[in-house]
C-alpha cells in the first residue's frame, strides 16, 4: 500500500464511521425512533470510502436510496445527518427529505435518490456542467446492480462517453435488487462489461478492498480531469442487512445463511484493519482510538438529533418554489 499513513487511517475512519453510524440506525430503527425507510450500507463501506477518497471537496456525487455511506464518505456531517433521519429541523433537509434525500450542496452531494437509476442522468448533468463552466470537477455516480438494468443507464453512459464528460459510473454490485438476484435481472456476469458498448473503459474491482477501489477511482478521476471521458467501475460487494430495515429476517428469505456468513468473513473493515497492522501502517491503539472517537461522535449526533425540534407546520408549505 503505497499510500500515506494519513490517507490510510482516513479510510479506516470513514469506513468505521459508516459502519457505526449504520449499526446505530439498526438499533434506533428497531426502537421506532427513526421513521420511514432505512436502506443500510453495512458491508459495502469500502466502495464509498475508496471512491470518495479519490475526490476533492469541489467534486460531486449522486447517490441512491442506500446513501448514508456515500454522503458520509463525501464529507457530510453526522449531526445534521442523524437529525435528518429523525425528521428534525436541524437535519440536512430540515427534516423534509429523510434518509433517501440527504443532500449537501457545499460538499458536492447532489442528493440521495429514491428512484433507482434516477441519479445517472443527474450525474452526467453535473459532469456536463463542469465541462461548460471549465472547472476540473468530476462527478462520481453511485448506482446498484439492479438499477443498471434501467434505461437511464444506457442513455447516460452513451451521452457521457459521446461528450467525454468527467464522470465515474460506480456500480455497487451487491448481487441483489431487493430480493431478486443479479442472475434473474440480467444475462451477463459483469455490469462493467457493458462499458465497451459505450466505448469507455470498464473495470471490475473487489468492492470490499478499499485500496483497490481507491486505486481504480483515482485512475478514473485522472482520466476524467484530463478530459478523456467517463469510466465504469463495478465494485463487487454485499449488503449484510436486509434491503431495508424491516426486510423479513434481514434478507434471509432470499439469501442463504451460508452466503451471508461467507461475505461477513470478507468484512471490508476487518480485512483492512488486518492489512494496516500487518504492514505496520497503524497500531491497534491508533485504530481503537479512531473507533472510540467515532462512537463518541455518533453518540453526540444521536443526542443532537433527539434534542432538536421538529420543523414547524408552516415548513410544510415552504421550499416548493424559490
Amino acid at each position: 500500500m503505497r499510500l500515506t499513513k494519513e490517507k490510510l487511517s482516513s479510510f479506516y475512519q470513514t469506513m468505521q464511521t459508516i459502519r457505526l453510524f449504520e449499526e446505530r440506525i439498526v438499533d434506533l430503527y428497531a426502537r421506532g425512533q427513526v421513521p420511514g425507510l432505512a436502506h443500510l450500507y453495512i458491508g459495502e463501506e469500502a466502495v464509498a470510502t475508496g471512491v470518495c477518497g479519490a475526490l476533492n471537496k469541489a467534486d460531486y456525487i449522486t447517490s441512491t436510496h442506500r446513501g448514508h455511506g456515500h454522503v458520509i464518505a463525501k464529507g457530510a456531517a453526522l449531526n445534521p445527518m442523524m437529525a435528518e433521519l429523525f425528521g428534525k429541523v436541524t437535519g440536512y433537509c430540515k427534516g423534509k427529505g429523510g434518509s433517501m434525500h440527504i443532500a449537501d450542496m457545499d460538499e458536492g452531494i447532489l442528493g440521495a435518490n429514491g428512484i433507482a437509476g434516477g441519479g445517472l442522468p443527474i450525474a452526467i448533468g453535473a459532469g456536463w456542467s463542469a465541462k461548460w463552466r471549465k472547472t476540473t470537477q468530476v462527478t462520481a455516480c453511485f448506482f446498484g446492480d439492479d438499477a443498471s438494468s434501467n434505461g437511464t443507464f444506457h442513455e447516460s453512459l452513451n451521452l457521457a462517453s459521446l461528450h467525454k464528460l468527467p464522470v465515474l459510473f460506480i456500480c455497487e454490485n451487491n448481487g441483489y435488487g431487493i430480493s431478486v438476484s443479479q442472475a434473474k435481472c440480467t444475462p451477463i456476469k459483469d455490469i462493467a462489461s457493458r462499458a465497451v458498448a459505450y466505448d469507455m473503459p470498464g473495470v471490475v474491482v473487489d468492492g470490499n478492498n478499499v485500496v483497490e477501489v481507491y486505486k481504480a477511482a483515482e485512475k478514473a478521476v485522472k482520466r476524467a480531469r484530463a478530459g478523456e471521458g467517463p469510466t465504469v467501475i463495478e465494485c463487487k460487494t454485499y449488503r449484510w442487512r436486509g434491503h431495508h430495515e424491516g426486510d423479513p429476517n434481514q434478507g434471509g428469505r432470499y439469501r442463504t445463511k451460508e452466503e451471508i456468513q461467507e461475505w461477513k468473513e470478507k468484512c471490508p473493515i476487518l480485512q483492512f484493519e488486518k492489512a494496516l497492522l500487518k504492514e505496520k501502517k497503524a497500531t491497534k491503539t491508533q485504530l481503537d482510538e479512531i473507533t472510540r472517537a467515532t462512537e463518541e461522535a455518533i453518540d453526540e449526533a444521536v443526542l443532537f438529533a433527539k434534542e432538536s425540534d421538529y420543523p414547524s407546520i408552516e415548513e410544510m408549505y415552504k421550499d416548493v418554489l424559490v
Partner: protein
Amino acid sequence: MREITYCDALNEALRECMTEDENVVLLGEDIGSYGGIFQVTKGLQDEFGAERIVDVPIAEAGFVGAAVGAALTGMRPVVEIMFIDFTTVCMDMIINQAAKMRYMFGGKGSVPMVLRTNIGAGRGTAAQHSQSFHSIFAHIPGLVVVAPSGPYEAKGLLAEAIKNDNPVIFVEHKRLYMTKGEVPEESYRIPFGKAEIKRAGEDITIVATHALVGASLEAAEIAAKDGISVEVIDPRTLAPLDKDTILTSVKKTGRLIVADEGHKTCGFASEITAIAAEEAIEYLKAPVIRNASPDVPVPFSPPLEKAFMFGKDEILESIKKVIAYA
C-alpha cells in the same frame, strides 16, 4: 361473512383469475417468492410457477411495454409497479401506447392489461414514495382508472379489471392493505362505471375515494348525531365515471364535498366539483369544498406528514362549514 384484509382480497382475486385463465400472467419487481413489497402476490409463485409470476429487473418501461405487447397478442398480463411514483419511468407505455392503441388502430386490437400500483402518504417514505397522482391517468382518454376503497371492492374490481378488455390502471391504497372487511369466498366482479352509494343521506353529498370513503362514513356517522344527514358516494372507478349517480345526489342534497387524496390543483376533486358547477349549479346551496392534499410534495418529518394528510376530522369540518353556510 368471513373478514379478510384488502391485501388478501387482492391476492384472492389474482389467484382466482390465474386459476381460471392461463393467459393471466404477472410481471413485477419482487412479486415472486418475496410476495411483493406489500405481500399482495404472496404464495402465487409457488402455486403458478416462475414462468407465470415473473420477477423483473428495474426496467419499468421494458416490462410495462412488454405487458402491452403481450396483451395485444392474446395474454392478460397484470403488472405491479411498486409505488405510483415509479409510473413516471414508464409513462410512455401507459399514456402513448396502452391508452391509445385501440383508438389509433381504429378499433382493431385491444390491450387487456392491468397495471397495479398504489398511492398514499403516511409511511414516512417522503416525496418519491408517497404520491397520489392517480388523477393524471383520469386525464388521459383510453384508460380505466380504478380506486378500490375496501377489501370487498378490492377483490371484485380486480377480478373485473383482469377480465376487462381495456388497459386498467388499478390504484390501490397503502393505508388500506391491512384493513379487514367482509369478502365473499366465491368470485364476483364489480362493474366499471357504476358508483356505490355507501350511505344514503339528504343534506350533503360527499364523493370520496380510497381510504377517504371510510373516513367520510365515520364523519357522516358523527354528523348524524347532530341531525345532519350525509350521503356518501364511492365512484369506484374514476374513469369511466358514474356522473349520473353523483349528479342525482347533488341535485337532491344541494351540497357537495369531495374527498380525494390527490393534490388539489387539477385533481379528481376538481373534476367532480367542475361537473357540479357545470351541470347542477342551480341546485347548489353552498360552496363546494374540495378536501384534497395540499399542493406540496409529501414531507418526510412525521409532524409535517401528519399535517399533510387529512381524514375524518377535516371532512367533518367541511360538513359543518357547508351546513353553517347561510
